[in-house]
């Protein structure tokens, strides 16, 4: 009944356009996603630096920027509405167009088929379509900076009525409409990708590749895809209703009796909280969509550089299942002080504290994977250990915020900013770097420069902690997020000093990221040639040449005889045994 599990590679396209631009090859698409994410990261990072400059030196004049954004920075001085556009777009771009695109779509596309022994995704054409839907989404998002009123300015959470009423903030004019359209395109694209992931992982595994033999990268991408499929529709529904409220006069979210900008708002009876529920029904699982693949890839890198199997493979899989299930019933912890029923608050507190259990089990497995290993501290390994550190530091912060009682004081403060940057900024970014240094030789047939990589790691680590560790404690002081300046309040003025250090750290981190970019492109052209399996790893992608040919396997797809983490097996000749090696030790026929 099931077709032979080799995947659906399309005939190898010839010609530049079909091969590199409108390609249906999962590897090309993965790299396209990755490079798109990189471009978006440059923009989103630049926005963050602008924010840092404004927060550290409020009202500073940067004349040359005034030319680029004549409306947002007239004469080079940032307006508050432009600052709000910056926070909104930084968040949106980073969450959806950088981390999602690079980790889930980029590495997901590249790794899933090749790690499970398929020739391609189940639906290569759909895959191509999904990438080419994201491109206009990116362009619309970026273009929204240049429409009247500027880009969306209601925060990445786009809470109505602020996001519904153009008269409430300039960015809620065309900027917000474009934001909604771009998000809609993104969701359609992500859904198509998710369908591909789920079907490919379930049905295209090669002979012998049982679910319990999958690398954890694939497992985590599977759960990320499932979560995406089940929770993004909530945002789709909310976005449709918000569009209707904005343009067709309906009142889903906008209540009656509002008086904005000197005028009565002609709406009746909508409920703003409805948006928050729908948004966070997606928004919280989205955190796991980003976080889980980061953790999965970290496990794979750890195994390769500890030269031993990961600790608790089964525990991780079980924890992933529990996390996935719990993550769709805890969204209310973003809304403890939103005005929803306090009884719900109790429910969500208890649920959220429960979710710390599988998270902590995964944390334990990450740390315990080091035990007894022979650590080879290459760049990918350094970043992987960085992930463990960030996962720990950031994860503990979450316990403060998931608790409704302490959240009364900490909600909406810099504690929150610090916490989520650790989790969906740091863990994911460091995992992305680890994955890049790790799989770069496979993707491009050349290795990245190790020395630059290590410098990149240390600057990033110091820069990252410098940026976000202190923010937790600013939050403990009560410093609210999304403030254009902290000059108006007596209690906030003394905190200005820390902002200087945060900004310096952010410049350091930015510099490190440019080092990474330089290394990336320099290595593309000049890096040393990589063999098939430079890291002596066990999973299937390392059994083919670098970069792998179209269709991944020259001859028949491989047969798998063992699980993904056969390192330092007692009777094996070498300290790693690829999944394709037959139990008696002979290499599987090609």
């Amino acid at each position, binding site marked *: 009944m099931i077709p032979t599990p080799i995947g659906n590679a399309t005939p190898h396209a010839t010609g530049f356009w079909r091969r590199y631009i409108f390609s249906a090859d999962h590897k090309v698409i993965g790299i396209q996603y990755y490079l798109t994410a990189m471009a978006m990261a440059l923009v989103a990072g630049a926005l963050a630096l602008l924010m840092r400059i404004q927060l550290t030196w409020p009202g500073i004049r940067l004349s040359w920027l005034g030319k680029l954004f004549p409306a947002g920075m007239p004469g080079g001085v940032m307006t508050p509405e432009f600052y709000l556009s910056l926070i909104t777009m930084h968040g949106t771009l980073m969450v959806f167009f950088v981390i999602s695109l690079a980790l889930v779509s980029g590495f997901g596309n590249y790794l899933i088929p090749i790690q499970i022994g398929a020739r391609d995704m189940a639906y290569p054409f759909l895959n191509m379509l999904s990438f080419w839907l994201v491109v206009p989404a990116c362009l619309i998002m970026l273009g929204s900076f240049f429409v009247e009123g500027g880009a969306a300015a209601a925060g990445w959470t786009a809470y109505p009525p602020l996001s519904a009423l153009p008269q409430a903030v300039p960015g809620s004019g065309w900027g917000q409409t474009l934001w909604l359209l771009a998000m809609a395109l993104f969701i359609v694209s992500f859904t198509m990708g998710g*369908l591909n992931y789920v*079907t490919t992982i379930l049905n295209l595994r090669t002979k012998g590749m049982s*679910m319990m033999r999958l690398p954890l990268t694939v497992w985590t991408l599977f759960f990320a895809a499932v979560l995406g499929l089940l929770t993004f529709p909530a945002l789709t529904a909310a976005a449709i209703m918000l569009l209707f409220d904005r343009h067709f006069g*309906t*009142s889903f979210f906008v209540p009656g009796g509002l008086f904005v900008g000197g005028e009565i708002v002609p709406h009746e009876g909508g*409920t703003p909280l409805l948006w928050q529920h729908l948004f966070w029904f997606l928004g919280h699982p989205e955190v796991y969509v980003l976080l889980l693949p980061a953790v999965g890839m970290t496990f794979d890198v750890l195994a390769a550089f500890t030269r031993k199997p990961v600790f608790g493979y089964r525990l991780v899989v079980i924890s992933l299942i529990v996390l996935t299930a719990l993550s769709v019933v805890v969204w209310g912890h973003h809304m403890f002080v939103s005005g929803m029923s306090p009884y719900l608050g109790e429910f969500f507190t208890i649920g959220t504290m429960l979710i710390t259990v599988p998270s902590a089990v995964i944390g334990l497995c990450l740390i315990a994977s080091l035990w007894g290993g022979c650590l080879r501290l290459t760049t990918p390994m350094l970043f992987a250990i960085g992930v463990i550190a960030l996962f720990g530091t950031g994860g503990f912060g979450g316990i403060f915020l998931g608790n409704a009682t302490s959240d009364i004081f900490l909600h909406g403060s810099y504690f929150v900013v610090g916490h989520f940057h650790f989790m969906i900024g740091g863990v994911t970014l460091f995992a992305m770097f680890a994955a890049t240094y790790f799989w770069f030789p496979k993707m491009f047939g050349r290795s990245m420069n190790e020395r630059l990589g290590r410098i990149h790691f240390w600057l990033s680590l110091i820069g990252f902690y410098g940026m976000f560790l202190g923010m937790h404690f600013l939050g403990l002081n009560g410093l609210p997020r999304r403030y254009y300046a902290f000059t108006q309040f007596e209690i906030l003025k003394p905190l200005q000093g820390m902002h200087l250090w945060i900004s310096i750290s952010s410049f350091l981190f930015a510099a490190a990221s440019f080092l990474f970019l330089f290394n990336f492109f320099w290595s593309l052209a000049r890096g040393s040639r990589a063999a098939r399996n430079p890291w002596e790893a066990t999973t299937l992608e390392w059994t083919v040449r670098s970069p792998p040919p179209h269709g991944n396997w020259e001859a028949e797809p491989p047969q798998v005889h063992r699980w993904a983490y056969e390192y330092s097996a007692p009777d094996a000749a070498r300290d790693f045994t690829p999944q394709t090696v037959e139990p008696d030790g002979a290499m599987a026929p090609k």
Partner: protein
Amino acid sequence: MQMELTQTSGLSGGTSSALERNQGSDANPPWALSTGELALWAFLATVTMLFAAFASAYLVRRTGADWQPIDLPGILWFNTMVLLSSSGTMELARRRRERFNGWLAITTWLGIIFFVGQGLGWRQLAAHGVYLSTNPQGSFFYVLTGLHGLHLAGGILFLGHALNRAARAHSDGRDDAALHGVATYWHFLAALWIGLLVLLSAL
């Protein structure tokens, strides 16, 4: 059983675990779905979640002070009968392979009639003075029927595709996966409509 094996196999490195011995699942379990079916069901899951999100929004919104029930246009009941019978003909088409071309064509036409009927329903409602933004339940009515209609339009295209394929598959005597797929999707749309109708009329 395999768990037992590992428990006796010593404490630390050296011995292999159940994971390493785990046999590959080459024989697919009987509940395994084909890739196409799997993709379809995953898609249906995400569509279900979309409408579930709208339904929960509806249930929240209807507690608002300004909520007024609207009179649903009478043609909806006719449309419902049309869609339900199209579901029936779809099933006939799927089961009775020798005659499926005819039933499939009838299903397609019934689908088109439903689609047009829904459009007439909108006109009836507008004639009663209920526009998109007149009334919250009216807004939901337009949005929900519109979205369902969009999915149904996709279903009609899918049906046309299946019709085309079925004609060819029939001529060379093969079973056709597209037919089973479109049947599942069509039944789903009918069930979804019943759900929406209950939501809009009874709640």
